[in-house]
């Protein structure tokens, strides 16, 4: 191994480590929620902006609210209103499932878990 080889190795590794760090910083910036109807992604929501959204569920309109980087279903039409009762979520480990409306809201991010048993 001559000097140039060592230089090359050092440079390459520095670049790799820097890009891994940068990628991680970039990933943490700005979190988004994904809204699905059945299997289809119908809306991606920026959680850094407080706002209200309307999507079409199986039983009609589903109102979604974003506040302080958290997201909840504010109003929907279903027998037990389980998903609007669930309230705000803000972690990738949590999911809002509106079964009768076939709407699923997930927070995007580096998933710490592959699944949750309830």
């Amino acid at each position, binding site marked *: 191994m001559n000097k140039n080889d060592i230089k090359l*190795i050092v440079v390459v590794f520095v670049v*790799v480590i820097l890009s891994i760090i940068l990628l991680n910083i970039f990933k943490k910036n700005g979190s988004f929620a994904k809204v699905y109807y059945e*299997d289809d992604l119908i809306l991606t929501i920026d959680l850094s902006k407080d706002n209200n959204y309307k999507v079409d569920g199986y039983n009609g309109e589903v109102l979604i609210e974003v506040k302080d980087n958290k997201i909840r279903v504010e109003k929907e039409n279903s027998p037990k209103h389980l998903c609007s009762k669930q309230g705000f979520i803000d972690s990738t*480990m949590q999911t809002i*499932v509106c079964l009768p409306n076939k709407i*699923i809201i997930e927070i995007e991010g580096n998933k710490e878990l*592959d699944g*949750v*048993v*309830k």
Partner: protein
Amino acid sequence: MKKLIIIFFVLINICGCSKNVDVYQKNIYVMDTVINIKVYSEKDASDILEKIEKLYNEYNMLTDRYNSYDDIKNIYYINNILNVNEELRLDYKLYDLISFSLEFSKKYDKVNIAMGNLIDVWKKYRDSASGIPSYEELNGISSISESDIILNDGNITKLSDVKLDLGCIAKGYVTQLAGELLESNGFDKYIVSAGGNIKVGKKYSNNPYKIGIQDPIDKNNIYKIVNVSNESVVTSGGYERFYTWEGVDYSHIIDPYTLYPSNYMKSVTVIMEDSSYADFFSTYLFMIPISDGIDFVNRDSNIEAIWYGLDGKIYTSSGFGNYE
């Protein structure tokens, strides 16, 4: 030049981008829940996911207790339309499921798939939030005896107006079949999440699957994370299935001997390979005291479990540490 090539391969490994593994996903809305399936594969898994959706839909109809479907002799039909002492030819799929269940509950008799009449009474009170049934009312219901169900060479006969309820097994059973279907088609890296039931195949990265177990008290929290591959993880109990009346929590799992909901723990989670058995054993363990359950699980090397006690204490079987 050789060194350059070595560096190149080292880098590729660091990136983890050496294989083109894609994630194929599907959500299936059946059995009062949403079943999410993820397949990690280099080849297209869309077709197999369609087949799995069909499988779930088919078993959903066969095991449905509240709806009838054209040309399908399902649980609703057996419970509500079939006459006592009349023999009915069953779809072999439903026949196999009932027969598998009866065989299990012969050994573990607290698990009972013929408790429909009892469950209905509790469901009535729970749905209308109108208190709890009296012992007299519960004691007065029709048969919940599995011996009133006779299976014979593809046929079923009921000897009383006993009602089947496959709630404690249907999801786990189909999830097992789904896993087997994926594997036999060459898709061995997958995760099937069906609410309280999760089944995972081989790991898709260097790490096993990380499964969180929901805290039965604070459902926004996970109280334990387990690392699994080629296993099923099934929870019984759990926050969402409790019914609270006058400050007392009643679980949805009813003991066929006391006629009241079991109340030994907040939840129990079973880890074992087969999802059907995991579903049954989690129900069984929910119905016996934690100390008995620990003894039971420690005698069987195929099962590990974790309990969330009424006092908030966590108990684990002796081999559970392997998953932590």
